């Protein structure tokens, strides 16, 4: 009898586990009809007095006076602006660690393993109309770890629920001061921009040798063949060479950007976006010819030498030269008002409304390889939507609702102040944390070779 019970309970546990894993893999999808809004589609103009119907997480219909299907929630958006959910192509929120700094090449590690779904910054980003982020590895090494594209489905404690299912793999590279400072601190290569190039060429050349060995092994019909050593780092580099992983490269100066274009041309790698890229404007024609993208700050500069010769007109120059450009945050603060950051391109370069908003929607979607799913309001795309009181490019604009897959994750009218999912049971007093502008810059955090605090806190 006891044995039987035991068996039963084991079965029950197994069943519960099975069910929960199935449930967790199935993220919530919503239905909603947003009525009578000014709909900024990005790809198909701005439509007045228009409804957007989302069914089962997808945009089902865009049009006038759509009848409300039974059981679908209606949102009256009269006088409000509806735009695609904002995408941040460079973020470090929701990451429990940022840098694996133990080697100058760490292609084998991935941010997928360090997603923290309980970071309250996720909610704060949603409150700024953001629906997806590119959670990036840091910039301490030349070839860093793989990044993870997330949807901000806040509320779940399961990291997998936040994954942007089907998004292409991406990886972080880094040029310039950050990796060379690491090299100097440890007495290894690279300590100069020459060394950075050498390290890139060495890495890809080794990957080609590795690939050749495996190709030969796979072709070999002999029954006595011996497999070469498996190396996840090399596997990842081969995947880059074969175009399966998009490269997002931390960079600032024009010369290093140009260097990487040449290295990638030589190795036949095409899918490339430069991150930060403060001097990309200097080589805009070369970037356009290569087809590389740039994901930049609206106006950050002068916090280190390699951004001293920056211009806030960077995004405008790139856009007008035909480079696919996005504006990112790299910050838990800026991410909350990317619409405002994008609007700065109207001050610096007088971009049109649509050009400015494309910088935080369809353009980053292209850079992340998810533009068939998000980045514009089109029938068939994901129901990732932000609603604003006031035009999103106005300084007075206030995001009021944010939907991911048709599910409402932010509603200003029903905003609960304390959004923590996890509260440390050991802490009796909540700490007060004062951040300076650049404290939110996490690119070099945890890079053991440098003291992040000293680096960005004017010490």
């Amino acid at each position, binding site marked *: 009898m006891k044995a039987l019970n035991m068996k039963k309970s084991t079965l029950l546990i197994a069943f519960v586990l099975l069910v929960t894993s199935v449930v967790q893999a199935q993220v919530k999808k919503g239905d909603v009809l947003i009525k009578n809004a000014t709909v900024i589609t990005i790809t198909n103009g701005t439509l007045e007095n228009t409804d957007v119907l989302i069914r089962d997480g997808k945009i089902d219909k865009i049009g006038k006076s759509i009848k409300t299907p039974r059981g679908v929630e209606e949102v009256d958006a009269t006088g409000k602006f509806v735009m695609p959910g904002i995408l941040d192509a460079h973020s470090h929120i929701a990451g429990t660690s940022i840098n694996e700094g133990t080697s100058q090449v760490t292609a084998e590690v991935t941010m997928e393993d360090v997603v923290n779904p309980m970071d309250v910054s996720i909610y704060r980003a949603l409150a700024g109309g953001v629906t997806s982020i590119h959670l990036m590895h840091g910039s301490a090494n030349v070839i860093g770890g793989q990044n993870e594209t997330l949807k901000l489905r806040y509320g779940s404690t399961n990291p997998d629920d936040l994954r942007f299912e089907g998004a292409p793999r991406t990886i972080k590279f880094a040029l310039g001061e950050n990796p060379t400072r690491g090299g100097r601190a440890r007495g290894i290569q690279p300590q100069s921009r020459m060394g950075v190039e050498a390290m890139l060429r060495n890495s890809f050349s080794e990957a080609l040798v590795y690939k050749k060995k495996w190709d030969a092994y796979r072709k070999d019909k002999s029954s006595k063949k011996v497999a070469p050593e498996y190396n996840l780092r090399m596997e990842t580099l081969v995947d880059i060479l074969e175009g399966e992983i998009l490269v997002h490269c931390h960079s600032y100066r024009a010369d290093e950007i140009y260097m990487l274009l040449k290295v990638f041309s030589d190795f036949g790698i095409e899918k490339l976006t430069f991150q930060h890229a403060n001097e990309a404007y200097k080589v805009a024609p070369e970037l356009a010819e290569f087809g590389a993208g740039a994901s930049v700050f609206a106006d950050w500069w002068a916090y280190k030498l390699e951004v001293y010769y920056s211009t806030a007109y960077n995004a405008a120059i790139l856009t007008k030269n035909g480079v696919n450009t996005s504006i990112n945050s790299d910050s838990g603060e800026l991410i909350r008002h990317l619409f405002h950051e994008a609007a700065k391109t109207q001050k610096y370069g007088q971009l049109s409304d649509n050009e400015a908003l494309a910088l935080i929607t369809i353009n980053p979607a292209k850079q992340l390889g998810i533009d068939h799913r998000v980045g514009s309001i089109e029938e068939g795309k994901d129901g990732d939507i932000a609603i604003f009181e006031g035009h999103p490019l106005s300084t007075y604009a206030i995001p009021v609702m944010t939907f991911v897959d048709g599910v409402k994750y932010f509603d200003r009218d029903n905003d609960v102040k304390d959004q923590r999912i996890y509260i440390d049971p050991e802490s009796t007093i909540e700490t007060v944390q*004062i951040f300076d502008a650049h404290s939110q810059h996490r690119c070099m955090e945890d890079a053991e070779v440098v003291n992040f605090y000293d680096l960005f806190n004017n010490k």
Partner: protein
Amino acid sequence: MKKFLSIVFVLTFIPLLTFGQIGQDVVRKARGAKFALTNAKIYTVTNGVIENGTIVINNGIIEAVGANINIPSDAEVINYNGQEIYPGMIDSGTQLGLSEIGSIAEAKDFREFGNITPQMQALTAVNPNSVAIPVTRVSGVTTALTMPSGGLLPGTAATINLFGYTPDQMFAGSKGIVMNFPSSANRGWRRRSPEELKKAQEKALETLNDTWDKAELYAKIQNTPEARYYPEMEALAKVVNGELNLYIEVDAAKDILAAIDWVKDRGYEKVVFTGVSEGWRVADEIAKAGIPVITGPVQSIPTRQSDAYDSAYRNPGVMQKAGVKVAIRSNDTENSRNLPYHAGFAAAYGMGREEALKAITINAAEIMGVGDQIGSIEVGKKANLFIATGDPFETATQIVDVFIDGYQVPMTSRHIELYEEFLNRTPGLNKHKAITDGQ
């Protein structure tokens, strides 16, 4: 008259354009003259809005403002065709001139060795040729409070106008001692336990009180033969005597309350709280104490994980509505130009546009003790103002002209010059082709 002027302009400046240039670069200089700015919508800040107004500037001073002004015959007339004129924006918390490149120690001069160095003069270290200065002023920010930082009493801050070739040419007439109130909060990513913080705070408070006790004593004897040379105490005595402002940087709610008590105990007259991130929690207490506040950055994340996402946006408005006199700062250096957007966010989240505009003009000026000279468009005040295509809080608005101390400053900066050079780069992709095409 206008025609005559334009002929004069052509005759005097064309030769300069052709001969006074180095290569293709024309050096653009500021111009001081008697100006009449006409046909503008003037936001005086202190006396409402004047439609189709005129401002006459003479000798750096606003000589006349109004709708029906006689334009002096010797004034250079600039017709702004309905564009808007505002008093120059004042950023009451920056390190402009003191920091050129954030990560390079050699390029930063805002922190001296030691914990108590109130005699260190920010004005001395202001680099009038800092690249960030033109970058800031072409956005309409004409004046800044530039502050030393670090330690307990890092030095003496100075108000500067963002035009001039020596610190003295830039000095806008106000100084103040900076003090960091011992804090119970963590700064940046540094995490210290509540016990560590408490210990450090108590120790800092003890040091601070010893120092001020000494300063009060010194203030009593400083004019007697017994007083020895003691520059730290000489500086602090100016606060004790009510000559200088004391800027107390304080953020956490309970620290603000402690600082209010501290100020009451000490009885110093000219005290300003700066930072004040959690002011919204204790706004009534600050108002009751009658201490003015310089707060910001407004675009900032909440100080506690449990706080509402917009608590920093709402902070200035909550304090202002409670009756606190509020100025808004960027607390930035190279991006002090974002001051109008910090004010804009405060406006959107409860403060309203009019009060937010005051927070970066007249309130800032009055708090720094120079409200009689700058901060609004009034006869007799310094001609610090800018002309915009519309509401300066909106990012699409262009700033078309800036006057500082009566000088029309060139509307250029390194950011603009790089834009002009690289928008359509020559040569483009093909250098050889560019030459043959004569581009």
